[in-house]
């Protein structure tokens, strides 16, 4: 599904290059569930953002569904992104001004779905996550776990092939975290969504089919189960 080859990213610090990602090569197949681990500052988020095309590497080749991302223009890149990728954040990042319903609906608006179609899709998603009763509330009126559910619902609404999650359970208690992980597993097994998650929790990482350990911007180890 995607392939990174000799990807590096560094920040100029005076005369020094500060490598955040240092020559990483990585292939991920469709249907995989990958967990990225590593100490704070090791470059996990940066790597995930590069995969998600939110950030650009300074060097290297990046292929995604057979497209050479490093050669694409901004517009083509965002079209690609829109079509295939959903993002889940540790800090949920819901739009405060929109209701639960509207937050979930927003990606569909940007993908030019018709009104009736949108309605059906959102209703479906609300149902599936059992938050129908909350649809007219604003994010500030929800608990952290509920907000993250909305965040995931929003990431999945446009049926992405690849779900990227940066510490999705970081702000939740362990029971809420477990529920989210179960959900991910189900998505991966039943719907065939490829998932890449960043996590600090050994236990959550084990939901994945592969664990990648980062250290100082390099892959220290990679285990498949």
């Amino acid at each position: 599904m995607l392939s990174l080859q000799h990807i590096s990213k560094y920040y100029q610090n005076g005369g020094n290059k500060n490598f955040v990602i240092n020559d990483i090569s990585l292939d991920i197949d469709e249907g995989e569930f990958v967990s990225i681990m590593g100490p704070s500052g090791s470059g996990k988020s940066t790597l995930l953002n590069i995969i998600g095309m939110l950030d650009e590497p300074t060097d290297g080749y990046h292929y995604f569904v057979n497209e050479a991302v490093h050669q694409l223009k901004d517009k083509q890149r965002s079209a690609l992104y829109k079509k295939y990728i959903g993002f889940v954040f540790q800090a949920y990042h819901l739009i405060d001004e929109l209701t639960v319903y509207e937050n979930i609906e927003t990606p569909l608006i940007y993908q030019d779905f018709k009104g009736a179609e949108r309605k059906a899709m959102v209703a479906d998603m609300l149902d599936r996550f059992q938050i129908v009763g909350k649809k007219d509330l604003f994010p500030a009126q929800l608990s952290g776990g509920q907000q993250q559910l909305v965040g995931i619902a929003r990431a999945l609404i446009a049926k992405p092939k690849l779900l990227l999650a940066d510490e999705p359970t970081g702000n939740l208690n362990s029971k809420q975290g477990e529920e989210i992980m179960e959900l991910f597993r189900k998505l991966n097994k039943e719907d065939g969504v490829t998932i890449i998650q960043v996590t600090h929790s050994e236990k959550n990482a084990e939901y994945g089919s592969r664990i990648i350990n980062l250290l100082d911007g390099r892959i220290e180890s990679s285990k498949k189960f």
Partner: protein
Amino acid sequence: MIRNYFKIAFRGFWRHKLFTLINVIGLSIGISAALVIYLIVHFDFTFDKFQPDGNRIYRVVTHYSYSGQTGYNSGVCGPLAGAVRSQVTGVEATAPFYMLYQPNVFVPGKGNVPVKFKNEDNVILADQQYFKIFDYKWLAGSVSALNTPNHVVLTSDQAKKYFPALSYDQMIGKIVTYDTIKTAVAGIVETIKQNTDFTFHDFISYSTNAANATIKDQLQLTNWGSTTSQSQLFVKLSAKTNIAHVEKQMTALLNKNFKEEKGNTGGFSLQPLNDLHFNEKYGAFDSEHQANKTTLYGLLIIAAFLLILGCINFVNLTTAQATQRAKEIGIRKTMGSSRKQLVVQFLSETFLITLIAVIISIGLAPIILKLFTDFIPPGIKVSFLAQPHVILFLLALIIVMSLLSGFYPAILLSGYKPVLVLKNQASSNSSKTRNAYLRKSLTVTQFVIAQFFIMATILVSKQIYYAINKDMGFKKDAILIINTPWKDRSTSKRDVFLNKLRSIPQVDQISVGGNTPPSSNNTNSTEATYKDGKKETKIDLQEKFGDENYIKVYNIKLLAGRNLRSTDTSKAFLINANYARLLGFKSPNAAVGKQIDKFNGDKAMQIVGVVADFNQGSLHTPIVPIAILTSTSIYQNGTFHLALKPETADGAEWKKAIAQMGAYYKQVYPEDDFDYQFFDASIKKFYESEQHTSTLLTWATGLSIFISCLGLLGLAIYTTNQRTKEIGVRKVLGASVAQIVTLLSTEVIMLILLAFVIVTPAAWWAMNKWMQSFADRTSISWWIFAASGAGMLILAVFTSGFQTVKAAIANPVKSLRSE
């Protein structure tokens, strides 16, 4: 998708109520001003635009240079029209007309008692070709009747006034008499409904002059040497005719038929139809309706400035909030929004705000129109708002304003990189400093505009005060001016009235004469030659007519010699010190007794006295040489100058005296209406246009300060909110309230000082330019600048101060705990 944007926009407006309010108020003020000013400008610029082939219609006007003085006259000499018709090429139609001076009109009434309409204006003599050049719709009769003498064509409104009971067809053939001219109605044309300076409503056949000796005498159809503005000439040129060529032919006709004295020249030029409404040199027909292009452009500039100020508030407040919105932007981008979609979203928010402001402005416009009735041409009505061109203008304004205020914030906000936002780095984004820089520049711009208006207002007021209160060399108060009727100038009647006036106890002194010492109209001047041995001094000398009481009524100081006597007529006069100086006399005394050789042709006049200089007009014009002399002509003795005794405490004497004068006037001149003027009021009138400028500037100043301060308040609220935590920490560390207020106010003060430095030279330059129109002017004092700068500073510190102090005295524990 747009609906979604609007929904979000409304929630945003609601959440930031205060900022929304500031934006809407600022924009509404600018848009209201722009709307009203647009109405005025559009009104004045559409005068006579409806005339077919208007670009080929010209008024022939006269310019002359007469003993060194150039002059302009909107009329032409009598024979020109005929000569143009037969001898000038390139002219398609020639329409001479003659404006009768307020004739009394009589139409047949019940039982042979004629109905009288007193002093009708806009009555002209015209011929067929007038209707060939200017477009009228005929409701009855036909133009051909104007060929024969003693016919008249009426406009529909006027016809209804004369014959309210008749249909247009029934009016044909009815008799209308103008003073002594008896005419039959030959046609009715529709009154022009569009904006026009051609407000004539009675058109008497031009050929009537052949049948009426008085008219013939007035038209002077064979005299190439006499020009009056009552006799005007319009031409319509053939297509593609060279204007200069036509002008040359006309001037050649004059030179062929009239030998000017040596040194004098005269000629004709063609004034385009679209210049008629604006050119003060020639005037329209009724000069009150004229518009001044400089004023119109000034108004446009004010509108533009107010609009800019409103836009600046919007840009400032929106970019200040940018970091707050950055999160939303980042999330939207990760959900697949393109930059373009975000720009559209932000622009639609701006559009909405502007739309609200426009709706408010439409509501405000009638109120403004009412408030400014003095400045607004009477033709502009509230119903103007419903016209298509106004709606188009408003649409254009909405679009331009939305783009102007929304474009930069939209580009800025939509440019945020999602990663930075999601990592909470938006505030350390490098564009933030650029933002703050732009915000400061815009704020400085606001202060520059506001301070410019303050400075201009102070200066204009200062000059007006100076002009009105300056010692002009004569007494101004407690003087009443009464004119004898223009149409009834008989010496005997005047003397009867004079004796009656004298009998009124409140009247102190009366002088009978011509113009008041300073007069805006009808200055007579003539060339005078003084011979001192071999040396000849030729100087243009202004004439003021008055009797021996003239200088007493006005307290004009006699420097040397004696006052006038009634026996001095045609033999002796008073001159002013300025003339004495120009003739080379060392002291006023030296001039007394000397003789001016060639005065008014070849009369010899003796200087019997010299008076101190006084202003002969407004302070726009300098003091020039003048002679005060008596005359026996009724035309130079038709004005009474009355000095009144001071009023006592209860202050009713003058009122009583004036009522008495009115009663006497009616006894002597039963046909005419009594009219009087206080001299000091007429002097204030000299500065009417400056007073208008001053009022407009005061409004512009008030509004621009208001808008700028609103913006400042918004920014102050925003910054103090942003810095709540910093303020809390500083206070915990021991900062005093005063130190915190200083910390927060320094920036505002610096910005105002910067604006002050920028605006001062520009304002100085503009003021200097404006003052050039005054021959006698007040100084551009340093305190004008100092006062405006200080005033702005105090206002601004006060505006932001409230917010600042509130933040400074807040309990730090609260702001820190929430973190």
